[in-house]
């Protein structure tokens, strides 16, 4: 029923026309030497003696000649071993000795045709171990065609996925995991995936459908390898995955029960699982619950389960976000939800580490404010990685006035564009700027004589930059002054406007 489910299913079906991953061929620089491939000819002709050593030498020469002719034939037929050799690509890419060097070459059907393409990685010397990533077509020609180039991946890695996409790993220096650390202590935490686009004529970033336990294909394939070794075998159980998701994202503390609504068997590649938290003692008997849709990784019945979406049966919808779509800040979230005093709940934008990089209170737009209402809210977010989109999640939680955790939730997988856009109307403020304490510090407010109200934000200058309108109240609660600040994501917001109330 869910489009999320269907899309995930399409994504994770094994490739029908593509060769298996075993067609890939990756060689490390240390493993192959050109000198070993092509034997040198003898330095001097053998002397004409009649002993058996002459015969042995003659046979040896013949063998060498045969091997040499074979090598020439191989080169002429396009199968020369040099293509797989990292050193082969150094002059093509133009690496500089002592600066950078081709590190690996992987061959695969990246363009979904019968021809092979080469994924070539170039490693730089230096403490940040930067990596450049190239994909070439026409790899046997004198001048291979460059299809794709991605540069400066700190402590980077790149490899071919089971779907013949290119997966990369790198350090996000400003992420919550790495910020403030030395390069040597930083961990690669940003994973991206690039798939061939015939219409664009290059590889374009794509979203892995999964949201949990892995947000990216790079991580998921690594997890699968561990599961194959007998670790984390709970990932082979869709109910266990759904339950773990509920604990991680909803913070449900009471007893959790699960019910498989569809699929989930040994021969299934899809599953729908309802997770339910026990009702609060003395509270309403309606249990918090959510429906988790899952797919097996790469549509393989031997593979682990990956949650690809969360939805709700009745009380909450999110209609404005398509799974795996590219979104930009601020993103408009629209749908319907069950409201109490016009409040539906909270909306979150989660980044590649599941960190909350945007949040907003979700309130009803039209209606009496109780029961089912429509909502529309524009949520701004600010990602730490600015060099390109990253995988993330849009989540809307339905909350109740008596529970800390959500009653239910909707989660959709997205690509988060780091470049903001300008929109009309109020948008949510950056997470830190939503706290009155933040503005008390900026404004130097003495909380004995005044207080800061809830700031609201918008693209007030008509460009993608965000400004905050900050109300300050007197001690008696009456409005005192309105301020507008610019550069609110920085350490030192700049005051643009001040209006004293009469």
């Amino acid at each position, binding site marked *: 029923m869910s489009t999320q489910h269907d899309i995930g299913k399409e994504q994770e079906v094994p490739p029908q026309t593509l060769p298996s991953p075993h067609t890939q061929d990756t060689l490390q620089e240390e493993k192959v030497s050109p000198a070993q491939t092509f034997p040198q000819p003898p330095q001097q002709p053998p002397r004409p003696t009649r002993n058996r050593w002459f015969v042995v030498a003659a046979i040896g020469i013949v063998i060498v000649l045969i091997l040499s002719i074979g090598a020439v034939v191989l080169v002429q037929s396009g199968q020369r071993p040099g293509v797989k050799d990292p050193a082969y690509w150094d002059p093509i890419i133009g690496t500089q000795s002592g600066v950078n060097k081709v590190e690996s070459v992987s061959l695969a059907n990246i363009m979904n045709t019968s021809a092979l393409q080469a994924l070539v990685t170039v490693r730089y010397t230096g403490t940040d171990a930067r990596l450049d990533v190239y994909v070439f077509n026409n790899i046997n020609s004198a001048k291979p065609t460059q299809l794709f180039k991605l540069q400066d991946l700190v402590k980077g890695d790149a490899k071919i996925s089971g779907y013949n996409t290119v997966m990369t790993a790198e350090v996000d220096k400003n992420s919550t995991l790495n910020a403030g650390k030395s390069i040597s202590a930083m961990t690669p935490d940003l994973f991206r995936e690039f798939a061939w686009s015939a219409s664009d004529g290059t590889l374009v970033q794509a979203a892995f459908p999964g949201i949990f336990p892995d947000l990216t294909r790079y991580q998921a394939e690594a997890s699968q390898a561990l599961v194959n070794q007998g670790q984390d075998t709970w990932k082979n159980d869709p109910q266990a995955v759904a339950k773990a998701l509920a604990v991680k994202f909803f913070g449900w503390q009471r007893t959790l029960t699960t019910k498989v609504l569809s699929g989930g068997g040994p021969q299934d590649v899809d599953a729908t699982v309802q997770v339910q938290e026990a009702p609060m003692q003395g509270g309403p008997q309606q249990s918090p619950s959510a429906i988790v849709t899952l797919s097996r990784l790469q549509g393989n019945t031997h593979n682990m389960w990956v949650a690809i979406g969360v939805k709700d049966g009745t009380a909450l919808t999110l209609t404005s976000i398509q799974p795996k779509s590219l979104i930009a800040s601020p993103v408009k979230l629209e749908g319907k939800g069950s409201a109490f005093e016009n409040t539906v709940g909270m909306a979150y934008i989660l980044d590649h580490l599941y960190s909350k990089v945007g949040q907003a209170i979700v309130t009803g*737009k*039209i*209606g*009496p*404010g109780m029961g089912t209402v429509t909502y529309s809210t524009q949520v701004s977010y600010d990602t730490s990685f600015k060099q390109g989109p990253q995988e993330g999640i849009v989540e809307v939680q339905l909350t109740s006035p008596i529970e800390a955790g959500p009653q239910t939730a909707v989660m959709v997988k997205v690509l988060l564009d780091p470049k903001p856009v300008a*929109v*009309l*109307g*109020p948008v949510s403020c950056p997470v830190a700027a939503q706290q009155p304490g933040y503005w008390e510090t900026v404004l130097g407010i003495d909380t004995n004589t005044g207080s800061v109200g809830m700031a*609201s*934000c*918008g*693209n*007030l*200058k*008509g460009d993608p930059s965000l400004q905050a*309108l900050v109300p300050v109240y007197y001690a008696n609660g009456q*409005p005192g002054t*309105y301020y*507008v600040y610019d550069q609110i994501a920085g350490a030192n917001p700049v005051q*643009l*406007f001040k*209006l004293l*109330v*009469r």
Partner: protein
Amino acid sequence: MISGVSTIITQDGDLYREFQWSRADGKFVQVAFPGMFPDLTRGQAEAAQAAVNSGQDSWKLDAVQTVQHWSLIGGSAKLVEGGGPNDLTAVVNVTYPEPGSPANIPVTRVTLNRLEGNSNGIWEITSVGSDWLFIYTPTSGTTISSPQTVTGFGPKFEAQIGTVYILDRLYQKIQVGDNYAMAPDGFSPSKFSLDLTYKSSIKGVTQEGLVELVHTSGASFDYGVVMVKVLITG
């Protein structure tokens, strides 16, 4: 608060103001909401929209009814353009017929726009004009100060083209002294120019308001109104 068009709207008692970023000035400047009725300011209009969304004042979703609710216009209203559920603009012609009045009586043309270009938005009157009665200055959206020269054009009746009013944020008439727009010569229609003094109730503050020219004559059907939205300095 921040409006639906990314301006700052403030409320200070019954005073609503709107400020917009000016790229040229590098600062926020006060601006005039284009609406005249049922709301004179964006702050009031957005509050009215919220009330309509919750089921109140549904007449504000009907262009003709919106015109009919404004006592400053009155007359007989007829929708002549737009005004449908998917329209963002509407034009309503207003006349003041009486038994025995001629077929071609003066028409006051009222233009309405949906609030913030939203097809679910309430109607706001944004222009009241005609093809026979005009206010040339001040122009729409400008800031006026007392005394203000008002110029225009229209037919005269007994040397008088009409009466000019300045209405504040509460639609109260705040002009002081002579407010007759007189024809300077014997021709009709004719241009006029009038220096008008007003007295704002709030000193040192700029508020949204209207400049209104009302034409009357001996016949009740020979009636017309034109209005211009302005910012009034205190």
